[in-house]
């Protein structure tokens, strides 16, 4: 079944406390070369049927309205499955 992937990151200018904690943990493991870690979300939407233009538009709207909060987050990528000729479902980034 086709899966649409929405990727969301906290806004670059905002403090990401999770990322900050992981940066500290990496440093404790001897990896102080990572000056910053930021943690976002990957949301997979599986569709029961074809990915139509209407559905694409709905996903783009919902990514802004519910899946992310534009005040604190950015939608960095929405990946729709490409209708492949061999039916293998290659991924295309939009």
């Amino acid at each position, binding site marked *: 079944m086709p899966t649409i992937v929405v990727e969301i990151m906290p806004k670059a200018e*905002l403090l990401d*406390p999770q990322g900050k904690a992981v940066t500290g943990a990496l440093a404790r493991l001897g990896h102080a070369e990572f000056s910053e870690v930021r943690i976002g979300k990957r949301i997979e939407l599986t569709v029961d049927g074809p990915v139509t233009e209407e559905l694409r538009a709905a996903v783009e709207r919902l990514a802004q309205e519910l899946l992310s909060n534009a*005040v*604190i987050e950015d939608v960095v990528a929405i990946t729709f499955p490409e209708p492949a000729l061999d039916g293998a479902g290659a991924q295309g980034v939009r």
Partner: protein
Amino acid sequence: MRIGVVTFPGSLDDRDAQRAVRIAGAEPVALWHGDRELQGVDAIVLPGGFSYGDYLRAGAIAAVSPIMSEVREAAERGMPVLGICNGFQVLVEAHLLPGGLIRNANQQFVRRDQGLRVENADTAWTRDFATGEEIVIPLKNADGGYTADAETLRRIEGEGLVAFRYTGVNPNGSVNDIAGLRNERGNVVGLMPHPEHAVEPGFGPDTSRRMRSGVDGLRFFSSVIGAVAAV
């Protein structure tokens, strides 16, 4: 006078809010997130807790629950709505108040008796305070860092929409020490600290007079009773 308190799955302080309403002299009405019925209430409290387990973002899923479309309509008609802690998060996610709330800057859950300055007494929930008055009520949250983009922040400050600011310490990294907001009309107020936990002597924050005697939260509820009676 009937004041509704919405219970979402994961609400924790709904019963405390009901108790505060009762102590202030109004009748609390339990409202359920899955209903579309406000049961004729005169005002609404969105209580603290972790609605929907804070899934996605704190308040995000509650903001699109069935009752919230009714709450939004009522708020737009002018009905007083108070969001406490998670309720404040629900109000910003529902775009009834501007900005957003992120994880506390120190990455920790914070619980303390918190000093606040009432920045705007011209709301349905703060009319029994004086602008500039300092109060103490409990604060307890993990996602209490208020944030907004520079333009929104200028508008909030320019239009006097800051209802409360933290005094003493800023417990969570909120920009401009913002603890709570009002909308333009003054019927919708949201704040991170908990007025419903400071309404009865013996169970509130310590004061200089006596331990646990702080009841500064009571005036939120007496304010709205006065505001509704004045309409």
